[in-house]
């Protein structure tokens, strides 16, 4: 997924306005193992021992996450709070490290095996759970939840495979009538029918879009009023200009420690509108617990965090995300494979990593899949050293390839966002392109314009290289290889055409289809296929992959029990405060 945080207020924060695309990354393997958490890993028992309960956990954020309606919000910032106030049928285990990548039943009693050729799921819903307004949870809550996916304009594509979804629109939706989502409130079951089998459906159900809201919730946008949920906390207030306040849900009891444990703090407050530098100062002084905008800490202050005094408070973890420059494969010069490979050889990834804040905050990359991802095998053909990791640019080879491609001296437009980091990345790319004989220039657009702009085929003639970033939605290689580089992801004349490079190789697409099909029948074979596809894509060079970013969390001295969940990152309610 690629996210643009709704508001990018800045001052010092301009450094990484677009790093705020923090998505929810997920990954399968050993995420915790690779994060060099500097903090002591004091592990709490995940059941919230009452000894540690209490206190107010204050998060400081530069800007709010925009509209709060869970059917529409697509930001990690709100999702980190929604996982504490709401539940879905299933969810990622709310623990740190590798176990956190596992999908466990939450409001459903178990994870059902699909029937009807993989198209029908029957969930048994837990009894005796109440919403924070006292209403009892019934299966029909989910009918409302899924109807709202279509009546509240949002990223509807996740659930468009449900039977009857095609008839839904902002004007109305009745999935129960069309037989897509059927609730049986006496047997406490929920049946979901899909139009085609979808191996990633369970992943999609873990997302907060699919969290249960009371059946009588309006089908219209609820704006900044969050409908009641079933989690250990509830929304007391939310004002995007000032703060969000979460207090304990009086009706909550633990039904599954792994899916939804009780939380430690009595209250969670997220304050908005602070300068990132002030966030850091307040947390340094212990006046607040967490800096939300770790990726926007000005370089000035980053150096102060290196002091041993804060060693236990800074946590750095790898994200499964790519920052890349898409090459426009529809237009010269980069419709030419040699030209694409040339710039891949020439791109000085050390420089891009420095723009990202140095090697401790980003790792140079050549291939599409990020490290610690299913099917990832290190591969980097575009360097001087061994072809597994990037060690330095190979300018001689790059220049030779440019000569051979006959594109020497071509004009190249590098499109990027106009914030500081976007500008810097574009300027470095221009410098790299010029070093091998192109005549490059930048084209900088506002962050909210740039992403739709480069996706739309109507603008193909206007750029050759486009910056973009992708944070995965859930741990499946298809989320990178098919979503970003599959033939089916090119939608002409649409602003939602995630294959920015407009790269389509029929041979590779055949393998992708094969791997998708094998996904449910022969996972091992599929995994090997994905690895092959990743390397083939890399050889075809539709992108210049720049680096995989890391997440930095800065917490107050009195915060304990930090763990890194690969899906949700920081688990706010699982942190406890010493008095």
């Amino acid at each position, binding site marked *: 997924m690629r996210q643009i945080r709704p508001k990018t207020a800045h001052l010092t924060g301009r450094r990484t306005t677009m790093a705020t695309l923090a998505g929810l990354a997920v990954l399968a393997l050993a995420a915790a193992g690779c994060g060099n958490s500097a903090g002591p890993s004091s592990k709490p028992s995940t059941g919230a021992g009452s000894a540690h309960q209490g206190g107010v956990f204050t998060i400081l954020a530069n800007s709010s996450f*925009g509209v709060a309606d869970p059917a529409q919000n697509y930001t990690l910032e709100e999702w980190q709070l929604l996982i504490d106030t709401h539940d879905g049928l299933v969810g990622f285990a709310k623990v740190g490290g590798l176990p956190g990548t596992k999908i466990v039943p939450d409001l459903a009693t178990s994870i059902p095996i699909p029937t009807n050729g993989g198209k029908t799921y029957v969930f048994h819903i837990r009894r005796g759970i109440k919403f924070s307004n006292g209403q009892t949870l019934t299966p029909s809550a989910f009918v409302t939840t899924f109807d709202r996916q279509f009546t509240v304009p949002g990223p509807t594509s996740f659930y468009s495979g449900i039977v009857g979804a095609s008839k839904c629109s902002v004007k109305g939706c009745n999935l129960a009538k069309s037989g897509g989502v059927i609730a049986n409130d006496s047997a406490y079951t929920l049946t979901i029918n899909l139009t085609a089998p979808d191996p990633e459906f369970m992943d999609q159900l873990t997302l907060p879009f699919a969290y249960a809201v009371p059946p009588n919730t309006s089908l219209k946008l609820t704006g900044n009023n969050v409908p009641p949920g079933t989690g250990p906390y509830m929304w007391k207030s939310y004002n995007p200009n000032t703060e969000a306040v979460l207090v304990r849900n009086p009706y909550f009891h633990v039904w599954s420690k792994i899916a939804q444990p009780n939380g430690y703090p009595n209250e969670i407050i997220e304050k908005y509108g602070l300068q990132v530098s002030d966030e850091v100062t307040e947390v340094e002084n212990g006046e607040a617990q967490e800096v939300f905008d770790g990726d926007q800490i000005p370089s000035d202050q980053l150096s102060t965090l290196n002091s041993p005094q804060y060693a236990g408070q800074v946590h750095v973890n790898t994200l499964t995300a790519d920052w890349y420059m898409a090459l426009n494969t529809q237009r010269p010069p980069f419709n030419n494979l040699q030209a694409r490979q040339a710039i891949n050889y020439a791109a000085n990834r050390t420089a891009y990593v420095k723009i990202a804040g140095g090697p401790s905050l980003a790792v140079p990359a050549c291939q599409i899949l990020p490290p610690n991802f299913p099917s990832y095998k290190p591969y980097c053909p575009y360097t001087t050293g061994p072809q597994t990791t990037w060690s330095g640019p190979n300018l001689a080879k790059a220049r030779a390839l440019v000569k051979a491609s006959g594109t020497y001296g071509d004009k190249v437009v590098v499109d990027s966002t106009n914030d500081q980091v976007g500008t810097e990345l574009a300027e470095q790319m221009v410098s790299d392109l010029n070093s091998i004989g192109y005549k490059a220039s930048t084209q900088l657009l506002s962050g909210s314009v740039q992403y739709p702009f480069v996706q739309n085929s109507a603008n193909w003639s206007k750029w050759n290289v486009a910056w973009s970033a992708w944070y995965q939605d859930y741990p499946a290689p298809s989320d990178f290889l098919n979503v970003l580089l599959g033939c089916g992801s090119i939608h002409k004349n649409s602003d939602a055409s995630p294959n920015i490079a407009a790269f389509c190789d029929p041979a590779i697409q055949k393998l992708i289809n094969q791997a998708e099909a094998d996904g449910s029948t022969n996972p091992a074979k599929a995994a090997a296929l994905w690895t092959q596809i990743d390397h083939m894509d890399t050889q075809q060079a539709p992108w210049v992959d720049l680096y995989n970013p890391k997440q930095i969390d800065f917490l107050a001295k009195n915060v304990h029990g930090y763990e890194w969940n690969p899906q949700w990152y920081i688990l706010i309610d699982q942190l406890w405060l010493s008095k």
Partner: protein
Amino acid sequence: MLTFIIRRTLWTVVVMFVITVVVFFIFFKTPGVDPARALAGRNPSPQTLAEVRAQLGLNRPLLVQYGLMMKRIFITRNLVSYSDQGQLVIPEIFAAAPATLSLVFGAAIIWIVMAIVMGVAAARLRGRIYDPILMILALIGLSAPVFWIGQVANLITQGGLHNSVFSWVPPLGYTSFTVSPLHWFTGLVFPWITLSILYIGFYARVLRANLLEIQTEDYVRTARAKGLSERRVLLRHTLRTSMITFVSLFGLDFGALVGGGAILTEVVFGIHGVGFLTWQALQNLDLPTIMAVVIYGAFFIVLMNALVDIAYAWLDPRVRPA
């Protein structure tokens, strides 16, 4: 006088109308701007887009679209931000207004007092070395970019000296008066000074020139001939007369600052006022917010201009036919 007021008011209304039309066209009718696209969410399907377009009335005739937009801004006041659909633009602007007003009022007090002191001093000390020194100082004030002065102020008060001399200066940002009057004050001291420097320089120069001009007028000479002390002449006669220019200038500048002119000061000090709001909207290309701020800002300025003109005409009947 009454006809003048009526004519001036009518003209004010016409200007306001033209402004709304111009702004509407700048923001909503330039090719390449699709409001529906921005409001439809991240990955809208074509039919969602079409529906949103219909909801917004974008498929209606231009005149109706303009009418709808104005209704959203002035009557129902439910114009929705692009970047956050839960956010209504107009209440947001009104919520930001106190910060801007605090900033501008405080700065205005400083610049009026300082400008009078400097202007009068320079006029009194004419022919001595102090006069040119004061005027060069005023010129320097006129010549420095306000955001840069703000940065220098931040460097001094938030940097190395923050832990000693300037420990009383809170971190950048605005604290509402109702939350903590003390923080409100300490947090605004440097923004006030920064914003006022330009105007001190300018007003001091104008005042000095004005005073020197009036000193040659007959009634001042008469007053002097009557044996009134130089100080009395200055205070009772010259200063009072030159206040007319001073006050009318002040009306215009005050209007401009409240109407968004303080954006640079607000941005550099992180004061969440109307200017800062515009700046944020600019970062997200949140056109409704920018548009609403520009319209409200322009209205305020037009209104202040009209008030100044009417006041001026009332004080000085000679300008009425103008």
